[in-house]
């Protein structure tokens, strides 16, 4: 009965196998190493989707397992993107500037190079000097560390404040939403030091890899994203499968009881909140080089709510549900809003999906919440023959984030 981790969690092995097969298939069909049946831009879309799946796993940990409906995890995702974006933009501009200054009669001094980079980057917001936040932008190792540290530190401080004063339920959701809004508004300012609403751009051009075609870069990023997703999934599965998982699920359903068992509920919440913020930051750092551009709109509160929507549609409290929800909804969104979906003629009106997809998504989401709380993941229960406990509609705990009858398995 107490066998290996994988024997206890067969879904992890299934998931990793499927992910590996998927990665192999995309590699074989991609332009870089395969037949070219999948275009480079679609490889990028798939790579980005894997990153979204990773942040969805983080969201599932914090909401599905711990019961904290955070409306701020996409902000952490965006912060991760900004951190790597700063280095990408700095290093690439440095190459361009060095090249152009090399033409000059007198070789440039380091200060001149730095000034020229600053003018190049901040010209759009009327600046010509590096703000303090760019102090480490020249160093890849430091910015990579910041990908983890900045979202982590923000989550740690915010979480400490919020959990310490026992803000729970919707209040916490509103508070996290306020934090996200504050961050987005801050980034929108031109003097935030991060180019205001222009954001950071040209991130798809990897410094020093000018000779490598985008098809190869994109498949490398796809692999990296798949590896990160696999690692994230393993980590999350490891966390939720043992006693730690028991404790956080206890917090979700009845945090007062966990407290009276002697567990420091605040400490656990802070741990999960911060760790998932770090995962989100890593996912963002992999996402934005594939997207090529990051701007404050990406951080806006609505993005974080969408994240919760993905997890809910996939089925919260099961890791594969979060992955399915994120992948399905984001790919469908791309398909519909990209104009690829065929319009639906109704005779008197033609439904153009670019305009109507959001309506469909919104209503679809209401229906899932009302009629299928266990989401798409619930379909696997049908296949596996698992049933919900019959609790006459009662929830599994007194807390606002607790499982509903139909979310639980018998």
């Amino acid at each position, binding site marked *: 009965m107490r066998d290996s981790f994988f024997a206890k969690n067969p879904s992890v092995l299934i998931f990793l196998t499927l992910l590996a097969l998927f990665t192999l298939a995309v590699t074989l069909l991609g332009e870089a190493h395969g037949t070219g049946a999948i275009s480079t831009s679609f490889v990028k879309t798939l790579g980005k989707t894997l990153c979204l799946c990773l942040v969805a796993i983080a969201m599932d940990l914090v909401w599905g397992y711990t019961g904290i409906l955070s409306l701020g995890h996409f902000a952490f995702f965006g912060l991760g993107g900004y951190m790597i974006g700063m280095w990408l933009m700095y290093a690439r501009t440095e190459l361009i500037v060095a090249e152009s200054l090399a033409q000059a009669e007198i070789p440039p001094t380091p200060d001149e190079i730095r000034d020229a980079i600053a003018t190049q980057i901040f010209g759009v917001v009327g600046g010509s000097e590096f703000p303090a936040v760019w102090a480490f932008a020249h160093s890849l190792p430091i910015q990579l560390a910041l990908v983890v540290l900045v979202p982590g530190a923000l989550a740690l401080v915010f979480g400490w404040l919020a959990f310490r004063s026992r*803000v729970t*339920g919707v209040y916490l959701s509103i508070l996290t939403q306020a934090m996200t809004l504050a961050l987005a508004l801050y980034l929108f300012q031109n003097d935030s030091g991060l180019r205001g609403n222009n954001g950071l751009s040209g991130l798809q051009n990897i410094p020093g890899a000018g000779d490598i075609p985008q098809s190869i870069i994109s498949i490398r990023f796809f692999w990296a994203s798949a590896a990160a997703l696999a690692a994230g999934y393993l980590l999350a599965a490891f966390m939720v499968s043992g006693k730690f998982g028991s404790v956080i699920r206890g917090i979700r359903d009845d945090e007062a009881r966990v407290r009276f068992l002697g567990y420091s509920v605040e400490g656990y919440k802070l741990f999960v909140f911060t760790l998932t913020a770090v995962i989100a930051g890593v996912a963002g750092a992999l996402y934005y080089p594939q997207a090529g551009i990051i701007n404050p709109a990406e951080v806006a509160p609505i993005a974080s*709510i969408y994240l919760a929507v993905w997890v809910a549609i996939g089925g919260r409290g099961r890791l594969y549900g979060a992955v399915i929800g994120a992948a399905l909804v984001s790919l469908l969104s791309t398909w519909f809003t990209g104009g690829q979906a065929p319009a639906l003629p109704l005779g008197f009106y033609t439904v153009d999906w670019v*305009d109507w997809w959001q*309506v469909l*998504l919104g209503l679809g989401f209401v229906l899932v919440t009302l009629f299928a709380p266990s989401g798409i993941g619930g379909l696997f229960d049908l296949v596996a023959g698992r049933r919900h406990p019959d609790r006459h509609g009662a929830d599994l705990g007194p807390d606002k984030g607790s499982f509903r009858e139909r979310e639980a398995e018998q």
Partner: protein
Amino acid sequence: MRILLASVYLFLLIAGPAAAQDNPIQQVLQENRDLLEESSRRTIGPAIDAISDSGLPQAQAVLEKWQAKELWQREADGLFFFAEDIGSDTYRLIDIATGAPVGSYDEDDLDQLKPNSGIRGMIGAALVRFQLMDPDPAKRADALDAISRDAEASHLDALRGSIADETDPGLKARKARLERILTIAYDPDPAARIAAIQSFKGDLGVDARAALNPLVATTRAAVTDAPPEDENIARLLRPGSDALSEVEAYALLVDAGLAPPRLSLDDQRAALAAHIENGRVGGVPVDRLDTVAARDRAYSALADAGTVPAAATEAEVAQALSSHVFYERYAETDPAVTEAANAALGAIAFKVGLNQGADLALDALSLASIYFLAAIGLAITFGVMGVINMAHGEFIMMGAYTGYVVQQVVPNYTASILIALPLAFVLTFAAGVAMERLVIRWLYNRPLETLLATFGISIALQQLAKNIFGTQARPLTSPDWLDGALVFNDVVSISYIRIAIFVLALAFLALFLFIMRRTRLGLEVRAVTQNPRMAASMGINPDRINMLTFGLGSGIAGVAGVAIGLYAKVTSELGQDYIVQSFMTVVVGGVGNIWGTLLGATLIGSLQKGIEWLNPSNTLAAQTYMILFIILFIQFRPRGIIALRGRAAGD
């Protein structure tokens, strides 16, 4: 015909000088005939004065016509006339005194007086005096406007002369004020100027500050020893202080020709580039010139060789700075005047500060009433019922679009607003009831799911609005009587729309209190929210109450939407802009208490305005800091300003 013309001509020729005899205005003109004919700016003054001082009723008309180049001289006898062009180079002359036509003349027989622009200006100044005494008050007001727009020294006397005879008290006050302002600028007597300056102590008028500020304007200067005696010195400056950095001080010396310019990095690079010889500059290889030290070495080598001018060294700069005196001087030379002006401006600044505080308070109040209006519906659905409705903002948006659609049908703005307010209520009430029946009632006690489900509705409604009305902003125009602003003084004012929103917010507060405290519905709502099971056992139908309450909250959001639409632009994202602030307002105020919501709105409104005042250029930063403040505030008062304590609050 020709004979007839000639005879008339002859007659007039004889009658001409005779006409001048009993025609005083013509007499004045004839007395100054030489000056008028010379028409030179330097000499024309006495002629203008003679005309305007003549006291004759035609003087003003003569000056006006002259200025408009419509005064003509008959070559034959030198008499002056007004003239009308009647075509084919023929003019009809009009007698100045009587206004009677004198006959028609060919252009060749006439001379047009053509004052140049300088003379026209002088005539204009002389005319001001007539305009200031014009029988029509509107013209007098125009003249005052013209003077205050573009004052000249010559206006001062005219203005002074017109005050005593002014009959209109309002205009008289304006004239007296303007006289004092002109006195400050143009009176030759320092005592009179100082008196006028002192009379403006604590005056809030922009014109007073505009008159005083030039008096205290300063320029910086540098001299070798002591500042000249005849200059009005504001203060001495020390290089390297906050008032004058060393770089600025040295630039002053360079401008005054007291020191050689410093070598900028760009100049240095250009100089080096110009002297590359065999890949070396001043003995330093070019590819080594990528540090400041190497470039300095190369440049001084060049300077030693005499190919480039020596750059000022740090020591020389310091020496130059220490050997000169830097000071600020007033453009106004009279120290007594500048002193009085500084004192008056100080008093004004203090009073302006007080009034700006009052204005800020009004601003904050009106922002608070907008937040309150946006949040009051939420205070019902979220505060009283505990239902979190993310589509609340979209109900506000629906209300605003209702106002827009009604205006398309009913063109009268007042009528359309009066129709739109109840219609918006009905529509959003219906939408709220539908939403409660279809979605929310299945999710009571599941606030997080409610949040997400209503968010789904929110994005669907937003996209629907976008599909129907497009993405561009739609106008919702306020009626005329809401245009303009209530002006207290030059600093404090508030627009009528904001007053209307404030009144509406108060009305809603009263309505809310009335419904909750004085009606059966309110009683039942309180019963259901406090103890649904008990309420149900007493014959109250909680389903019905929940439905009505939610509808009420949504309906109020709709009405608020009409009001907000008048003030902000109507787009499909209108609601989104308010939703987070609205929730903050309710949470900060204390859930379940309308006074808390009021306090919350006041706090958030004043806070935002206060932060904006500290950093006026950046409203985004104000919002950021406000939200951070709220997050911190909730740390210390997790249940809001007005917290329900103890067991009643529940957990």
